[in-house]
């Protein structure tokens, strides 16, 4: 597939990296010569310097041959205009990064249908929502929702106290009668595997499970994670009053957290305070721990650092953890730093690029991928795939289907019910299948369902 990416920022760079790894022909267009040079050196893509909103530059970047365009600059207007241009050139798939609620809301005057855009992504908002999900879900460091939130894909870290510590998958399978979930993957020392019956869960592992949302309370119980009985009065601290911080605060307010947002710029504080209702806005540096302690960070339930600066985020998270904050989370952009998180003791590190990638990558997949989530620090993916009408897979037990190695079926969502997959499960037309796949198996999984 020939893909044109407009904008070599964090999101664009990451997309290029992923797409070229998957064997697509990628052209990157950016107006900043410095970034063009940097990308040329580091990426296996063709880089063109120019304005994404100009037809002449688009032609130079080969828009006439492109199959898909992904406009992911910082500016809504440029992205939308690029997609409008692409429509005139007959590009089949058009994806734009759009921040403004004006275009995203349901009753928008200029909706994506009118603009001829297949997908509008908003990584900042997506990452804020993900952080809010994590904050509300005790013990998890990764959450993705599938099938309208029915099936949850959750990541847990295994500590010394964890009851799963030392159990083999077979032993775990015996108690699964009571607890309906699938351990889809285990990440150990940066390596992700799909566990077999003899593999044991060890301290320091991260496990990923598929479970139905109604089973979550019992899973929390199994993992000895105390479900918060008091839903009122949980206190959350947010560092950074940017777009992500504000959306996160609003989200947590709705979950009835007592939210306190820390921002170092006084003017920005006032803007944030104007936008938010109940949140207490505190004018302080993130490292000004004395002020934070005065405002009660020590017995806060969660501290979430979402400033633009990775180092500030990580440092302040560690500082708060040191002073007793129950859980800390951090926004991290640099992939290199992302891998540090578990060893540092930060409960979750989230990157806006990952959530953007999840939304975009399904558009370049073959088959009927409905949605997709990428896993922190590796290129594995959790996929939601539709079983097409007339598929040869229908009505045969799974064990006879010759499912690709390196991938696992987690759950099957029928029209009105769901099941945790085992060898005897059968697929039906219109089912949605939740699959976890390692990078090398992704292509095979796609072909399998095609």
């Amino acid at each position: 597939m020939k893909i044109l990416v407009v904008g070599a920022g964090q999101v664009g760079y990451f997309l290029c990296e992923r797409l070229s790894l998957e064997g697509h022909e990628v052209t990157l267009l950016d107006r900043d010569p410095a970034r063009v040079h940097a990308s040329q050196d580091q990426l296996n893509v063709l880089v063109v310097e120019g304005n994404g909103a100009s037809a002449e530059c688009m032609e130079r970047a080969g828009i006439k041959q492109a199959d898909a365009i992904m406009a992911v600059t910082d500016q809504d207007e440029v992205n939308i205009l690029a997609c409008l241009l692409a429509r005139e050139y007959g590009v089949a798939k058009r994806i734009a990064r759009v921040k403004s609620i004006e275009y995203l809301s349901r009753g928008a005057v200029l909706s994506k249908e009118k603009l001829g855009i297949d997908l509008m992504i908003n990584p900042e908002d997506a990452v804020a929502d993900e952080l809010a999900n994590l904050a509300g879900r005790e013990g998890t460091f990764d959450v993705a929702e599938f099938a309208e939130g029915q099936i949850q894909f959750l990541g847990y870290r295994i500590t010394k106290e964890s009851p799963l510590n030392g159990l083999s998958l077979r032993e775990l399978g015996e108690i699964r009668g009571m607890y309906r979930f699938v351990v889809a993957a285990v990440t150990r020392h940066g390596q992700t595997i799909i566990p077999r019956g003899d593999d044991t869960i060890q301290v320091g592992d991260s496990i990923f499970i598929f479970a139905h949302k109604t089973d979550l309370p019992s899973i929390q119980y199994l993992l000895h994670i105390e479900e918060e009985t008091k839903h009122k009065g949980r206190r959350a601290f947010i560092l950074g009053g940017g777009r992500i911080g504000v959306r996160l605060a609003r989200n947590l307010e709705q979950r009835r957290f007592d939210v306190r947002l820390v921002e170092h710029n006084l003017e920005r504080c006032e803007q944030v305070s104007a936008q938010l209702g109940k949140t207490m806005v505190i004018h302080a540096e993130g490292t000004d721990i004395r002020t934070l302690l005065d405002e009660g960070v020590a017995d806060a339930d969660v501290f979430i650092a979402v400033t633009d600066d990775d180092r500030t985020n990580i440092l302040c998270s560690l500082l708060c953890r040191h002073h007793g904050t129950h859980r800390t989370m951090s926004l991290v952009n640099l992939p290199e730093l992302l891998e540090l998180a578990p060893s540092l003791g930060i409960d979750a590190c989230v990157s806006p690029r990952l959530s953007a990638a999840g939304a975009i990558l399904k558009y370049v997949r073959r088959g009927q991928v409905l949605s997709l989530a990428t896993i922190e620090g590796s290129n594995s993916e959790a996929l939601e795939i539709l079983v097409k009408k007339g598929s040869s897979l229908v009505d045969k037990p799974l064990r006879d289907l010759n499912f690709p190695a390196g991938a696992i079926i987690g759950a099957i969502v029928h029209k009105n019910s769901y099941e945790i997959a085992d060898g005897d499960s059968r697929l039906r037309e219109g089912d949605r299948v939740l699959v976890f796949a390692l990078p090398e198996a992704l292509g095979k999984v796609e072909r399998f369902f095609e």
Partner: protein
Amino acid sequence: MNIALTLRILGALLLFLAAALLVPLGCALICNDGTAGAFLISAVICAACGGGLFGGFRTGKDLSVREGFAIVTFGWLAFALFGALPYVIAGGIPSYVDAFFEAMSGFTTTGASILTDIEALAPSLLFWRSFTQWLGGMGIIVLSLAILPMLGVGGMQLFKAEVPGPTADRLTPRIQDTAKLLWGVYVLLTAVQTGLLMAGEMSFFDAINHSFTSMATGGFSTRNASVAAFDSAYIDWVITLFMFLAGINFTLHYLALQGRIGDFWRNEEFRFYLWLTLGATFLLTLFNAFGPYDSIVDSLRYSAFQVVSILTTTGYATADYELWAVFCQYLLVACMFIGGCAGSTGGGMKVVRVLLLFKHAHVQLYRLIHPRAVRLVKLGERPVDKEVMQSILGFFALYMGIFVAASFVMAALGMDLISAGTSVITAMGNVGPGLGTVGPIDNFAQVPVVGKLVLALCMLLGRLELYTVLVLVIPSFWRK
């Protein structure tokens, strides 16, 4: 400060007043009560002065902020000065100071009267009293803007000087259109109320007079006993309702007529105003049920009427509230300070200012506990500008300062403590009756001449919400 331009526009306003005087002239001709001559002479004097000023000063310059303040202040003063003429010429009120007090009380919609026997006055003079209130209610400048095209340029300066509430609502791009819309709503509501009152077997003359003065939250009545003279629960409730409506921001009425009724509830000032009215009514009803009234229904009727009458700064009376418990009287005095909503015809400090003052105080307390927290005063969802907040704090200080200073003067003139204080607050709030010697069944006739002038000034200050008048006292206003 462009004096020529100021005088020219003042001339235009006087010409407008001369035209307004033709309305009671018509009334005098119909009633044939022998006052037609007085109105004609007044109109001619007005027209001559106005025409002289308007024709004598020609200038091409535009209005600036300063002229705006001067024109509005002196315009109101001129209206009261010339509006007093018919009373004197017709002989209804022989003393010019008394007539000036009455006219000022009329235009500022205060409703305080120096008349001992109102019913002795000729009908067309009574009509003129009510008519002055009706003109003053929505604002004479706003009205002039709506009708006089020549005020178009720089009209916003005048509009802001006359309607200086903290929230400026502009319904249309052109200020003249906004003025027309507001007056349209005003006329419509007045007409509806007149119809409803006539349905309650009030005569057309009484109905239109009371509609004029209740929509303007003025409070002049055609009867000595005020609204109590009609002794009808229906009339009491109709007037209560329309006083309450007149105390609401007229922008909201306009939006409601456009079908946006939900805007009432979304408006935080309106919600606060509603709760204030309901809360005060509840307390008064409770206290009065054990006091002067036998049934809770009667207690509710008289309490609700009096609360709304005082809170909207209308100043009608259906009961002598001086016979009520001291608690009730005190509650009414508190209502005098608060007044109606910004953008309504009501006076007082305005509900929104009081609301924001308390919010500001709350934020100050909050800051003591959380010194680094940034918290803004919000009205509805929107944060209030710091400048607006400061202006409100300044307004409050000035209001209290003027209240104390003027009370001192009244006390120095020999009035007792309660009368001195409430006469000033009732004048500043454009309410009408106070307590003590200026209570609901008394009048202002016995107040010394100096006192009357001081109170008249207080009325003007209150009606134009202090700043517009006080800015003229600042020396640098007059310098280049």
